[in-house]
Each structure stands twice: as structure tokens, then as C-alpha cells.
């Protein structure tokens, strides 16, 4: 590739990525050369500013028609824009939390590391959502993964943190191996790594042996990627890692990393396997194998919610709850209705706000004592009523009670599952059942917050730092706003992304 071609690309499409990349480099250098006594929180604010800048850049790109550069390895379609926006908003919120995070072990030494690793992770996720090629997809995936492995082990003097990072790496490698193996089949059959070329090639496939191999690849890719979603059968790392990692990292894993997982899943599955005809020549493989995904979705929902009942550690509980939420999202993915993109996007939007809001409060409450037992929440209502009420909002939303964004999200998925023909009413019913089970542990937290006196009897107010205050207010406002007026979000989707029609374009 000569310089001329290189310059002919419209690099503006990558502006948000470049902003994050440059910020990462600057942060690394600053961390290296700044004197030890300079508070590294400064770097956090810089990182935060860069994410805001990236959001601004992305907003500027919203009106751009579909564009692709680097021989269609990087594409900026509606899908990429919509989900990148979620990733950036989620990251901005997590960064605010991270700036206020103080752990017992003292994070001062590694605080700088945290910020630039966080940004590289984000960069990986953004590249994943924009890639049109298996290679870039994989590079993005690994950038995200490797950053997350280190982030999980950041509390170096904490045994649990070390253990969790180790488990995360091992499991992550297994998942990468499986995914890659699946992808190698795809490459073997089509001879290309470009998603669009592969899709074109696969349309005309008819050899049953090839279809069989593609089926195997389907499962390998799906199971490999389910690691990132934390869904069955690759969910078991989640509780350990969530528990061991520092709270902002947990928040990052449960929100940003999970969204990235769904982004890559949808990108690969819909681009490739929706094009593979089954032997009857009409049903695409993605639809023919819906029952399998549906089954996994059901198991994920049930398992996540049922095991969450047993947890006393709040972060483990949220790990299982996040497994369950991945299950709900998989229901939408299974049904593949024509509102699939909208409903997944909306659910994730709601999830970003309600889950990060909850994590903000978890961080505040657990930071003080270092204990993560749910009894730490006892009497929160007496100590600080406002925190208690906002926590109530987040929990109600996670549980899917009407009036909150979480309800609308579930309703969309639910209607989507029934809209298609044949409708997935069994899956929809399982989803309701699983939701009901989730009430038990969600309301367990609420009864701690509202109905229990503090264990120690002391009723000191919880101090809320500025960044966390902003996160809590934003999240609570958004959770209620999108619960009462969801049309705002859907209108935004309609006007800017036009039903994601250019996904296959």
C-alpha cells in the first residue's frame, strides 16, 4: 500500500478511535514522566475528557452515510455508530466512578495504569463495533481482552484479585482458541476474511458437507464469544472475576465489555450465518439454529437468576444478575425479529444506566468498610435517604418494574419474541418466570436498604464525591426518563440510524 492510497482514505471516519488512541499515548507518557507525588486522578480527568471528545466526534459523524476505509476492514455504518455511542457513554460513566475509587490496598501506584489500560480496552471495543473483517474484529477483541485481564488483576496485593485475573486469563485464552478455531473453518470454506465477501460467497453454498462444517463453526464462534457475554456455557468465570476485580473494573466488565461482546456476536452471526442457506435452500442457518440459541438463552436466564439467590456478596450477586441480563438479550437475538437491533440497543442503553448507577452506589457503600456483604446496605435509607431512593430506582429497573427503563427494555424483547412467526412463546414465558425469580434477590437488597437498621447502629452519612454524584444523578434521571418516555430513545434511533438498513450494505 503506497502513501497515496493511504492518504486517499477518509480518516475522519476513525476520529473517535484516534482521539482515544492519542489520549492513551499521552496518558502513558504522562504517567511515566510525571513526578510520583502528582495525583494520578489528573490522568483520570484527562481520560474522561478524551471520551467526551470522542462522543462529540462521533456525534459529528452521525449524519455521515455508510463509509468504509482500509479496504472495507473498517466500516462506519449505523450499527457501529449506535453501539459505539453506548460504549462511549458507558465508559465515560465508569471513568467517573474510577476517579472516585479508593480501595483499602491503596491504588495510588497503579492508578495511572488503570486509566490508560481502560482506554485501550475501550479502543478495542470500538474497533470491534466498526470492523468489517475477521482480522480487525479479532484484533479489537484481543485488545479489549488483554486490557481487561490486566485490569482485573490491578489490585496486586489482593489475593482474590490475583486469583481472578489468573482465572480470567486462562478462561479467556480458551475462549479465544475456540473462537479462532471456528473462524478458521469460515476462512477455510470461503477463502476470505472480509465479512461482506464471505457473506456473498456463502449465499450460493449448497454442499451439505460444507454446511455441516459451517454449522460446527457456528457453534464454536458462538460458544467462544459467549465468554465475553458471560452467558452459558462460558459464564463461570464471571462471579469470581467480578468479585476479585476492583469495583470500577467490575462495572467496566459488566457493562462495556458485555456490550462489546454482543456487538461482535451480532456482527459475525448476522453477517455470516444469516447468509448460509440450510439444505432446504431457503431458511438461513441463523434461523434454523434458533432453537439452540434459545435453549442457551433460557439456561442463562434461569441459571443467572437462580444462583444469584444464594449470593451474599453483592458483587457476586451482580455477576449472576449480569449473566441473567445477557440471557434476556439473547432472547432478542434468538427471535431475530425486525426490531431486534432496536430492542437490543434500547436494552443496553437502559442497562448502562441502571447497572452503572447501581455500581456507583455499591462502590460507595463497600469502599468504606471493604466488606462486600449485602448486609453493608442495611439501613442505608436512614444514613442517606437519597442514595437509598436512587438505589431503589436502579434495582426496580433491573428487576423490570414498570415506570423504569428496564421495563421498557424487557417489554421490547418480549414483544419481539412474540412478533415473529412462529413466535417464541416458550422462551418468552421462561423469561417472565426468570424475571420473577430475580425479584427475590433484588428485593432482598431493597429490604436491606429500606427495612433493616444498620448492624453497628451508627448512622453516619455516606459522603458522595462529585464524580459519583454526577453518575448517580445522570443514571437515575435516565432510568426514569427512558421508562416514562421511551419514545425519546426510539425517535433518536429512527432519525439517526434508520433501522440499521446499511448493516449488510
Amino acid at each position, binding site marked *: 500500500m503506497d502513501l497515496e492510497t493511504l492518504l486517499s482514505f477518509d480518516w475522519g471516519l476513525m476520529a473517535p478511535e484516534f482521539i482515544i488512541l492519542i489520549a492513551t499515548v499521552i496518558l502513558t507518557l504522562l504517567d511515566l514522566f510525571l513526578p510520583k507525588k502528582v495525583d494520578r486522578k489528573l490522568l483520570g480527568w484527562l481520560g474522561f475528557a478524551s471520551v467526551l471528545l470522542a462522543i462529540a466526534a462521533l456525534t459529528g459523524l452521525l449524519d455521515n452515510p455508510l463509509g468504509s476505509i482500509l479496504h472495507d476492514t473498517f466500516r462506519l455504518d449505523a450499527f457501529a455508530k449506535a453501539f459505539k455511542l453506548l460504549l462511549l457513554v458507558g465508559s465515560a460513566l465508569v471513568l467517573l466512578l474510577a476517579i472516585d475509587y479508593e480501595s483499602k490496598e491503596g491504588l495510588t501506584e497503579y492508578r495511572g495504569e488503570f486509566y490508560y489500560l481502560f482506554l485501550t480496552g475501550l479502543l478495542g471495543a470500538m474497533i470491534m463495533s466498526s470492523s468489517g473483517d475477521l482480522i480487525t474484529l479479532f484484533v479489537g477483541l484481543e485488545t479489549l481482552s488483554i486490557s481487561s485481564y490486566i485490569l482485573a488483576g490491578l489490585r496486586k496485593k489482593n489475593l482474590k484479585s490475583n486469583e481472578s485475573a489468573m482465572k480470567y486469563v486462562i478462561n479467556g485464552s480458551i475462549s479465544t482458541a475456540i473462537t479462532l478455531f471456528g473462524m478458521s473453518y469460515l476462512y477455510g470454506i470461503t477463502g476470505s476474511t472480509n465479512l461482506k465477501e464471505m457473506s456473498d460467497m456463502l449465499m450460493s453454498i449448497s454442499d451439505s458437507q460444507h454446511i455441516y462444517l459451517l454449522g460446527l463453526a457456528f457453534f464454536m464462534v458462538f460458544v467462544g464469544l459467549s465468554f465475553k457475554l458471560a452467558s452459558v456455557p462460558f459464564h463461570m468465570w464471571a462471579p469470581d472475576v467480578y468479585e476479585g476485580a476492583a469495583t470500577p473494573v467490575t462495572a467496566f466488565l459488566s457493562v462495556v465489555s458485555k456490550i462489546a461482546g454482543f456487538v461482535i456476536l451480532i456482527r459475525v452471526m448476522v453477517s455470516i450465518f444469516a447468509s448460509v442457506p440450510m439444505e432446504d435452500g431457503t431458511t438461513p442457518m441463523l434461523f434454523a439454529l434458533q432453537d439452540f440459541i434459545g435453549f442457551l438463552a433460557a439456561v442463562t436466564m434461569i441459571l443467572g437468576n437462580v444462583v444469584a439467590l444464594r449470593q451474599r456478596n453483592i458483587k457476586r450477586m451482580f455477576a449472576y444478575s449480569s449473566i441473567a441480563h445477557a440471557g434476556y438479550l439473547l432472547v432478542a437475538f434468538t427471535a431475530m425479529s425486525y426490531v431486534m437491533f432496536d430492542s437490543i440497543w434500547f436494552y443496553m442503553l437502559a442497562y448502562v444506566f441502571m447497572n452503572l448507577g447501581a455500581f456507583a452506589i455499591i462502590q460507595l457503600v463497600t469502599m468504606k468498610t471493604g466488606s462486600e456483604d449485602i448486609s453493608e446496605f442495611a439501613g442505608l435509607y436512614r444514613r442517606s435517604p437519597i442514595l437509598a431512593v436512587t438505589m431503589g430506582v436502579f434495582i426496580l429497573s433491573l428487576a423490570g*418494574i*414498570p415506570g423504569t427503563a428496564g421495563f421498557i427494555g424487557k417489554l421490547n424483547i418480549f414483544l419481539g419474541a412474540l412478533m415473529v412467526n412462529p413466535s417464541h412463546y416458550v422462551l418468552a414465558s421462561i423469561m417472565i418466570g426468570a424475571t420473577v425469580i430475580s*425479584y427475590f434477590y433484588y428485593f432482598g437488597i431493597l429490604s436491606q436498604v429500606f427495612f433493616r437498621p444498620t448492624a453497628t447502629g451508627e448512622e453516619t452519612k455516606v459522603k458522595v464525591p462529585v464524580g459519583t454524584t454526577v453518575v448517580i444523578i445522570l443514571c437515575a434521571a435516565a432510568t426514569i426518563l427512558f421508562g416514562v418516555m421511551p419514545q425519546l430513545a426510539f425517535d433518536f434511533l429512527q432519525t439517526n440510524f434508520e433501522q440499521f438498513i446499511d448493516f449488510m450494505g
Partner: protein
Amino acid sequence: MENAWLIPLFPLLSFLFLLLFGKKLKEASAYVGILLTLASLVYSVIVLVGRLTNDTYKAEADWLQIGNLQLTVGFEVNQLNALMLVIVSLVSFLVHTYSKGYMHGDERFPVFYAYLGLFTFAMLGLVLSPNLLQTYIFWELVGVGSFLLIGFYFHKDSAKAAAKKAFIMTRIGDVGLLIGMILLFWQTGSFEYDEIFASVQAGEVSGTMITLTSILIFVGAVGKSGQFPLHTWLPDAMEGPTPVSALIHAATMVAAGVYLVATMFPVFAASETAMATVAIVGAVTAIFAATIGLTQTDIKRVLAYSTVSQLGYMMLALGAAGYVAGVFHLMTHAFFKALLFLAAGSVIHAVHTQDIEKMGGLWKRLKFTAPLFLIGTLAISGVPLLSGFFSKDEILIAAWANGNYVLFWLAVIAAFFTAFYMFRLFFMVFTGKPRSEYKNVHESPASMTGPMVVLGILAVISGYVNTPWFGTFLGDWLVEGNEALGHGHIEGPAWIMIVATLVSLAGIYLAYLMYMKRSLAQDWFTSRAPTVYSIVNNKYFIDEIYQSTIVYATKAVSLFLRFIELFLVEGLVKSVTGIVQGLGKLGAKLQNGQVQAYGTVAFVGLAVLMLIFALTGGYL
């Protein structure tokens, strides 16, 4: 009527205002709540009066568009919800006023009023909803409000447990409602009531589907209205403050289930099986709860079981195609049961116990409360000329006219029990000698007696809007312009009224014999000399026959049913939760912390998926 949507907003305003400024206002919060609910009440009355002369009013706005699906929000004023608006806002207003005296001195006084506001908002919103989805949203909100109110005394473990139980038991019902609602949506393509009715009447939905969806929706009503077998939360919910019981467990939330069935009546009416289910569940609940009510000794629990039983009557009425009878009883019951709860609260306020074994002889000491309690008791027992008499009569006639003779007789027996246990309650509390020492028993303040007087008047006169003698005004108005709801008045044989009267008088007389005069009976019981003298002279021999036969038998049955309730129904619920818990345990055990295991699960999972794919696809 165009501005009927304002009605729920007043209590919402009260909720928000008290949430923010309650701490500063302290007990002055009461005035905020009272004034704002008064505004709702005044407006509701205006709307009701407007609806008397005008047609149904409906307004809607777009809310959410998913694909080409358009969901709307709005409100509707038809006969049923205009009536409900007045009932709900009236009782809520009275309860707000009453609580000012009852909750006096509670440190969380403003919070209580805030919760009351939230609950009233939710209930009024529920009543105004023109579609199933909106109904469901408010339905859940009502649940949240009641959860907070039942658990208000959260320092008591029993209150906490009761709040949780109420929430979860009603949730079980709500799942039914949600599934039924979604199925209906799937079949008719709309959540709007009128569109659903139109599509059902046009025969676009298959018979089995109508039956299935209406039964599922009925499951939701069963949970909310405390019908068998999901009724066990209601007696436990008496752990909440007494005004709450009057508001939630007499007039509003528990009536929501009945209201839902009434609203969806055209769908239910299209399926015989669904109607029969509603009628049978209603009748069984009516007699089941009445029987348990016979032996309870906690004043509020007696009233709770009687509520369950009366709600059963309403369901029976609806199931027997007696739309008017059901709604009519819903109205009269709201008044007299709220009265009874408030009067019971006044008694508890005076003697600081809820155990009727420890009461007695309060008639002279509570000059206001006692006669009002008597009015409520007479009304619920179905004594002629009071409101309960007319509405109960309508229900019996509807059951008879529908040909459900078994259910009819069950209802008659339940009426007998009702009269008996209510007067047992009355005699034990107000007559005889005090059975424990009271300290400074005093009548409640005017803020408490005032609302009781209003309800007392209504408990007497509200029946006259629909009587066989002076015209069935309410009934004619309710069904006007809607043939699917049946007739405004169902003609029934005259002897039913006589039977109903006799049965209730018999119940009262039996209670009189046993509990008014029981000191004598007990003497006889202890000095059981089998002499001719005592046999001849003991005019309460008849008591003893009762005592040793009928009463023991009913007591046994009552205990047996309570046993069923405790072990079978709750056992079933427990075993379901047990299974879930067990699964959780198993899942947690699998999570053994060993990274090999995690990898293995993923690999085995993958292998199994591929194997099944290969086998089912015929590749191997």
C-alpha cells in the same frame, strides 16, 4: 371530563412534595395529603356527575413505537371507572383524615402520608387506564405502594415478612396477568380495551384462546383480590397500620382484581369455562374464608378473612353474569368494610390490643365507635334496609338466575357464617365484661370519628341507589349502551330475599346466644350435674347442643381449612421456592472455584451442542 387525568396527579403531587419537604413539615404533612386528596375527591365527583349525563370520554396520545407497533397512553371515563374514581378518592380522603389522629406521634408520620399519596396515585391511575398495558403498569405500582405501606412498621419482623409475602404472592398472580395480556395482544394486535372487545365480539379470537387468556388474567385478579388459593397474604398484611388496611385491604387494592374482571367482562363473558371458573373460585373463596373467620381471635384478622370472603362474593357475582351485582357489592363493601376497619382501628387505638379475647364491655366506653361498628356489622351481615343487604341480595339472585344452584347455596351458607362471625366479633368486643384491664380507655379524636361517621352514613344509604323497590338506577346506568355487560337488573324469585334475611338473622341469633350469654353457658358447662333440675331449668340447653355439635363441627372444619391453608397452599408455595432455592444451591456448588471446571463446562457445553446439531441435522 376532559381533565380527568388531573385526578391521580393530586396525590402524586402530595407524594413528591412530602418526600421532599416532609421532614420539615412534620405532622403538618397531614394537611398537604388531606387537601390534595380532597381535590381529587371533588374532581372525581364532578367527573361522575358529568358522566351521568354525557357519554364515555376517551383521550389518548402516542407513547411508544416499536417497529410498526404503536402503543398509547391516555385515560377513559366510562360508568365503571367514574364510579371507582369516587369510591377510591373518597375512601382515600377519609383515610388520610383518619390517619391524622391514628398515626399521631409516629416518628415517620410524613413518610406515611407520602406512601399514602403514592398508593392513591397508583390506584387512581389504574382506574383511569384505557388499555391493558397501562393498567398493568399501574397495577404493579399499586403493588409497590402496598409493599411499602404493609411494611411500614419495618422494625417488626412480622411486618417485614408480611410485606414481602404480599408482594411475592401478588406477583405470582401478576405473571398470569402479564402472560394473558401478552397473549391477548398477540391475538388481537392491541392492548386497547375497546379494540380487544371488538375483536373478541367479531369472533376473531378462537374460543380456546379466549378461555385461556381470560383465565390467565383472572389469575392476576386472584392474586390481587386475595382469592383462593392466593389469599394467604391478605390476613398477614394486617401487620400494616390499620388505616392502611382500611384503604388497601377493604376498598381499593383488593378491589382492583374485581375491577379488572369487571373491566374485562366482555372477554370473560365470551367464554363459559372462564365464567364458571370465576364463579367457582369466588364461591369457594367466600365460604372458605368465612369458615376460617369463625375462629380467629385477632380483630383485624377476622376482618381480613371477611374481606377475602366478600371479595369471593363479588367474583361469584361476576362469574354468574351478574355484572351489576358484582360492581354494586364492590361499592357497598368498600364503604362498610372501610368503616369496620376504621372502627377497629379506633378500638385498637383505645385499648392497645388486637386480641378480642382480651376485650369486652367497650360499648359504654366508646360511645361513638361502638354504634358505628354496629352499623358496619349489620351492613356486612346483610340485615335488611342497610346497604349490604341489597347488594348481597343481587348477588344471590344472579347466582340463582344463572342456574348455579350449588354455588347459590354455598353463598347462602357463607352469608350465615358471615353474620355469625361478625356478630361474634361485635359481642366479644363491645358487650359483656372486660376480660382484661384497660388503662385510660378514651374515645378517638374527631379526626378519626368524623370519617367513620361519613362511612357509617354511606354504609346505611348507599344501597338505595339500586333496590328492587325504588328502582335499579345504578344497574341501569352501569350497563347503559353496552349490551355485553348484561341486564341492569336480574329478576329473581322473591323468596331469595326472605331466605337471605332469615339466614343472616339466624347467624346473628346464634352469635347472640353463644357470645352474649356465654357466661351462663360456661357455668353450666363446669357444673355439669346431670340433674333433672338443671336440664329443665337450663334454658341454654340449646346452646349446648349447638356447642357440642354444630359449633364443634364448624370449628373442626374451620381448623381443618386453616390447616389446608397453612400446609397445602403455603406448602405448595414453599416447595416451589424450595425447588428454586435448591437449584440455586446446586448451581452455587458447581461453581467450585476451580478454573479447570470452568473450562470443562465450556468445552462439554460446546461438544454437546455440536453433537446434537450433528445428530439432528443428520450429518452423522
